[in-house]
């Protein structure tokens, strides 16, 4: 399988080219076969990805890092399409957020290895087997937690109004003509809605601190995150065989 490169310009634009641009196409097949095979199996057990998926992702990881061991924020510049994404910053940050690595740590890291990369990706994994209702609930909670962490930038357990405003602002940032007031108003309206749904009656002197995770779950009750938040690429069946080309 062959990984397609994004435009060479994007690759060259990487601010810290840590080594010469390697011939990407050649690395595909012989990735230190036996040794990495073992590692991959280990990873597969921990992340729940299949071997094929891990190989596939590893290739991508290598391409992103220019064959370094670790991935840095700048490496994401290579993905040219990402620069059009209004929430690019948040997406990139999610990869360096310790909370997403499943190790109960907090804070940001400078660079991540392949394992962390996989851990982040695993939040977008399709469940392999049929799930019971409880499993579904777990998957759902885990995915929601990932989303929640993306919004809760200071990790205080709540999405505050400031954070929410920031989120809406980012979502609307692709639109040039928009006044800032509008996005603020939308964020405020949304926040107000959350407060009303989750808390109900409030006395004037009470202050709504922000959206907690439980409330976050509550407001997204109607959205089937567990079926929506999936990237098909990671599902290793016939659809994926096409994807690299």
């Amino acid at each position, binding site marked *: 399988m062959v990984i*397609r490169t*994004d435009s060479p310009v994007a690759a060259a634009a990487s601010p810290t080219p840590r080594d010469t641009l390697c011939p990407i196409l050649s690395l595909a097949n012989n990735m230190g076969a036996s040794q990495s095979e073992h590692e991959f199996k280990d990873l597969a057990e921990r992340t729940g990805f299949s071997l094929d998926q891990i190989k596939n992702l590893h290739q*991508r990881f290598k*391409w992103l890092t220019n064959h370094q061991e670790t991935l840095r924020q700048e490496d994401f510049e290579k*993905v040219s*399409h*990402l620069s*059009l*994404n209004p*929430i690019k910053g*948040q*997406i990139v940050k999610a*990869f360096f957020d310790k909370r997403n690595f499943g190790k109960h740590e907090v804070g940001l890291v400078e660079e991540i290895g392949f394992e962390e990369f996989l851990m982040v*990706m695993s939040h*977008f994994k399709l469940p392999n087997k049929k799930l019971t209702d409880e499993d579904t609930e777990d998957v759902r909670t885990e995915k929601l937690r990932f*989303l929640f962490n993306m919004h809760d930038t200071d990790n205080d357990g709540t999405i*505050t109004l*400031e954070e929410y405003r920031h*989120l*809406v602002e980012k*979502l*609307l940032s*692709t*639109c*040039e*003509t*928009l006044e800032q*007031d*509008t996005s603020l*108003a*939308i964020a*405020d*309206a*949304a926040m*107000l*809605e959350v407060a*009303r749904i989750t*808390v*109900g*009656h*409030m006395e*004037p*002197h*009470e*202050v709504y601190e922000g959206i907690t995770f439980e409330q976050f779950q509550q*407001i*997204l009750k*109607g*959205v*089937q*995150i567990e079926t*929506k*938040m999936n*990237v*098909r*690429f*990671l599902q290793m*069946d016939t*659809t994926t065989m096409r*994807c690299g080309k």
Partner: protein
Amino acid sequence: MSALLRPAGGPHRSLVRRWSLLVAVLILSVMASYVSASVVRTGQGNGTTTRTDSKTNGTSHHTKKAFPVLSINYDYVRMPFEISLWILLASLMKLGFHLVPRLSGVVPESCLLIVVGLLVGGLIKLMGENPPVLDSKLFFLCLLPPIILDAGYFLPIRPFTENTGTILMFAVVGTLWNAFFVGLILYGVCQATGGELREVGLLACLIFGSIVSAVDPVAVLAVFEDIQINELLHIIVFGESLLNDAVTVVLYHLFEEFANAGTVTLVDACLGVACFLVVSLGGILVGAIYGVLGAFTSRFTSHTRVIEPLFVFLYSYMAYLSAEVFHLSGIMSLISCGVVMRPYVEANVSHKSYTTIKYFLKMWSSVSETLIFIFLGVSTVAGPHSWNWTFIIVTIFLCLLSRVLGVVGLTLVINRFRIVKLTGKDQFIVAYGGLRGAIAFSLVFLLPEDHFPMKNMFLTAIITVVFFTVFVQGMTIRPLVELLAVKRKKDTKSSINEEIHIQFLDHLLTGIEDVCGHYGHHHWKDKLSRFNKSYVKRWLIAGERSMEPQLISFYHKLELRQALTLLEGGGAAVNVSMQNIQPRRPSPERLIPHMPKGREEEIRKILRTNLQNTRQRLRSYSRHTLFEDPLEEEEEDYSEVQMRKKRVEMHRRMSHYLTVPAKPQTPPARRVRFESDNQVFGSTPTSTPSSRFQVSLVPSIQVSRAPIARMEQMSQESVSLVDESSQQQDSEGKGASGSDGSLGAELSVIRGEMDNLRLPRCFSDPGPNKIEEEDEDEEEHFMS
């Protein structure tokens, strides 16, 4: 009257002519009302609505050469008259069913309508007349398009695109399978049983199979709207019924052609496949072209709002007709036209036009649907029948069998690709929901008799199948859905939070796909929307709204709805205010703004005066424009007592800061009110005067005509202000202190004191607008 006329025949000839014209009109109208009265009476009484023999001569005196005061010329109006009567009958029937709630709860409307049709047909037959048959031309050119356009225009895009693969699979492969399975086995059965059935040829069987296998959108809509099934199943069955039109059209024409030619070669079969692609893609293309044209036209209608809705209907109808000209799939053309046109048209037209479009579509489609079912019943009585037990029973059995096999088989394949698998229950509902309907009937009706001598038998069989599916399946599907506990449609009152997070998720998934280097679903969707935003919208949407992202327009819609729903809430319950979520805790004195009574009164006076002016300015009338004039519409008699009561209430509310009223018993109803200091009110598109109303924290209140009118709508109490404004003038004398100029002055006086007060809140307090409120209610009803 003639006595009046005769003396007038004097010197002034022009006067006479005018008089005679008037009299003629009078006579005509009297006559028409007479005839209509009598016919309606018979129409309702014993069900005959047509052929009311009106050869009875006029009741006027028959003296020679006398001016015929009253004469009858029924033939002159007969066509439109009968049509109106049919529609009237249909509408009355529809009305009647909903007056008997228990009946409509058990039996689907479509069944009842067919029964009514049967009764009417029977009565007509008893009268010794020939009941009319559902004319195929009438059906395809007049009755079907409104239903399909309605379905296409309001097609839920998101679920549709998310399930396109499944829908296409069922629509194309499933229909093909059904057609050939039914056709071939039927042929086998016909050959095996012998007798007269032996004459039925293979091609005839195949064409019958292809007609009978197509799921009918009209029947599906009629039944599925009743049972409120979940979105996924609804869109699968409904989408299938829409998209299988192309397959049916191709198969139909193909077999018809072959029946003429006699021999079929492999080349013909290949051409058939090519034909399918041309028919479906061509239909979509034609529809899309007209859709773009329609959107482009609507860009320029801002000065003639009145005819705006017409463009939508005309372009869609043209799309349908143009597709039919080339034997392309008219249904697909209509749907793609509606889908393409809708987002741009909605951005361009005014809110009222939008409502008009919606109502017209709903009205037409429901009338068409009613007529179709009634006619189906009538034609059953009328049609030439030839009943063949074997053929009909085998047909029904094969229809059911092939449907079940097809659905189960295809689901096996589809489920491998789906994230949300179709469960056994889902498959059952999909299979069971495959209703057949009037399209199949009309198609059989169109068969040329000379090539298909068994046409009458086919007709009978099709009618039986339609009746079987509509009655047996249609009536039992609701209990079955309940029995199986299939997921129902959830209350889809979208909240702004869900919208935000869904959009966020979209972007997130696109981003992750990009990082993975996988160009999948989200990637292409993102590309498409980017293209749409950067090129298409610029061309098709007028003004700055072209740049508006989806979230904003969603927000505007929501805002509007919230303002309207406040009426029910009455503003009584106060739950959460902006104060509660403010990040920095406000200082205590700002927490509870206190407005002196006198000031409040003053502000209200200012408002009132300005309202007065607004009203006077709006008095002009034009036939070609609709004035946004809520004041006139709300001029109703409010008694003094009511007025007082409202005023007391208003006092209470005005001293209150931003509030979020909600009826505790209806939690899903989203009602939010926002802080007014960064608020942009929902803007109905450009021409409506009251589009934007911004109030900044420092109350530099821009009092212009528009905001005032808006405020008038906004505050519930101000309903009474309308009357108040005139009465107050007399009672208080000083109330009407003037024009815009003095208004500014007065405002500046109070400005200083209000710095700490959140005055604008009182103004922006969104309230009811009774008329639109009703609209919105209906809207939600329809949307759901």
